[in-house]
């Protein structure tokens, strides 16, 4: 187990290193931030530019800048925004909970959608119900998340004004964005539940449970579902990166005050410290979630560790 933990930890560390290097490198591709910052400031002398570089630490070699940046990542200090000088850490601190809340409510909602459908497809294998669910899952894979978001707004906020169309206005605001991501996520999860359920249902202990005379619902949702839980949680853990990527996009549709909105506003205003900080934090969150899921899986299922 210790060996597995060390190996997995080193892997995560490597990924963090690569991602931060990539982001730091990308942001430096812009050319001279000092020039960009001084744009529109009227007459700018070479001395002014040098002052800005000095203040931002841009006159130091790349590796020193990168090390300072990494030090900041681990201490939560991401520098200050170009706009108004607010601390990037504080901006992220305000936006991250909104994004994570959306991510977790989407995960829970998608489990509530995909587990019953997947179990039903497995039980009715080969029938019209099974094929109907299969087609439904293919259709669910076939539209862009932001378009589904627009259609849900059109239907449930404009034609039938049940939910608020955008922004944060109490828990009701959570419904439409979570539903969007949950539908997209369920399209693939349903298939996983169906396949693992098919394997589980042919196991002997299910036969025993049935021959004991347990009700079918108890057999399915208590005995069989428990064995589907591990692959399901692993899969959802792996999908976490895609989920975050999707949320970043639909935040624009819902004007959701999260990391996506923060990053896009930063792009619009060429606010590179904010862009760098928000992409780094999102990648870190994804790495950590993947690591936790992997370790949890290793604890529950010893076969993984020896792989």
């Amino acid at each position: 187990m210790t060996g597995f933990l060390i190996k997995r930890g080193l892997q995560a560390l490597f990924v963090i290193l690569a991602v931060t290097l990539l982001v730091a490198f990308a942001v430096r591709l812009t050319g001279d931030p000092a020039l960009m910052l001084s744009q529109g400031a009227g007459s700018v002398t070479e001395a002014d530019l040098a002052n800005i570089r000095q203040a931002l630490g841009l006159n130091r070699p790349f590796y020193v800048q990168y090390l300072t940046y990494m030090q900041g990542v681990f201490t939560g200090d991401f520098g200050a925004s170009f706009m108004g000088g607010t601390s990037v850490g504080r901006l992220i601190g305000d936006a991250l909970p909104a994004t994570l809340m959306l991510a977790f409510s989407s995960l829970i909602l998608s489990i509530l959608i995909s587990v019953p459908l997947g179990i039903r497809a497995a039980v009715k294998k080969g029938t019209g119900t099974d094929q109907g669910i299969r087609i439904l899952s293919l259709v669910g894979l076939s539209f862009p998340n932001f378009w589904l978001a627009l259609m849900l707004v059109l239907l449930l906020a404009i034609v039938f004004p049940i939910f608020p169309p955008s922004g944060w206005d109490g828990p009701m605001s959570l419904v439409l964005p979570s539903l969007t991501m949950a539908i997209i996520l369920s399209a693939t999860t349903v298939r996983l539940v169906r396949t693992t359920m098919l394997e589980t249902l042919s196991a002997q202990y299910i036969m025993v449970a049935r021959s004991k005379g347990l009700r079918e619902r108890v057999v399915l949702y208590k005995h069989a579902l428990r064995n589907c839980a591990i692959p399901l949680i692993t899969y959802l853990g792996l999908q976490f990166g895609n989920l975050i990527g999707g949320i970043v996009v639909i935040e624009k549709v819902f004007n959701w005050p999260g990391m996506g909105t923060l990053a896009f506003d930063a792009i619009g205003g060429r606010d590179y410290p904010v862009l760098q900080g928000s992409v780094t934090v999102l990648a870190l969150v994804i790495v950590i979630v993947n690591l936790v899921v992997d370790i949890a899986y290793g604890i529950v299922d010893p076969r993984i560790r020896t792989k």
Partner: protein
Amino acid sequence: MTTTVSPATKVVSRRRNYGSLEFILGASLSGIVILAVLLSGFLFPDGGESMDLGARLIAPFQSWDHIFGTDPLGRDVLARVVVGGKISLTVGFVSVIAGAILGTIMGLVSGYYRGFWDMIVMRFADVQLALPFILVAITFISILGGGLTNVIFFMVISQWVQYARLIRGQVLALREREFIQAARAFGVRDLAMIRHHVLPNVIGPLIILMTLNVANNILLESSLTFLGLGVDPMIPSWGGMLADGRTYLQDAWWVSVVPGLAIMLTVLGLNLLGDWLRDRLDPTGKV
């Protein structure tokens, strides 16, 4: 004599019927879209650009000239959807073919020779898993600018790993098989071995992954363009039309609904084909 069909055969034959239905539906959807896009220059010589400010925001099915209505500038929605398909299909096919070629070469090298290259590919795979494409795109495209070429470039950069992983896994499994060992015992050279014995055995899963990724990349391109990070907003494209339509959602639903349906039918067609191919070529579920 009466023939009885056992329930098991019934299920199998129904499954097969569903399979052919899947193929017919998938092939005809993709076929219609590809044909319409190829013929778009002939069908709509104006490229969907001609404006008629007297005919702004006409609802669908009101006039024969504008079956699917017009947008806020009086441009025909159907014409723009068909012309806009060019962007989506170009991005989808070019990015996947380039990514698959690069990934296949890397996968063959890493699976066949193991060692250093193998480690590089696997570490890249870890990074790719942690950085979803949309985050890579936000970081790089916001700095280097969007446009067709950059969008395709970043798709290839972030997706070749998928193909490399698939091919690597297949090659690792093949290495142990008797016919490969026999070929090696006969003194077959590496390149000939890869061409005649390895590639034909990995082509099935590769084609499935490519089909599904064309569908996926069409979705990604539309997201990027919707966010303003993709192709030039002046060129008609599905994502761009949806970004415009969003403002008019309340008064003119069709401006957002029609391009979205175009994406959905195209991607659904490709997904159906991919699914059908998976049943045919990959019954054990490697992809």
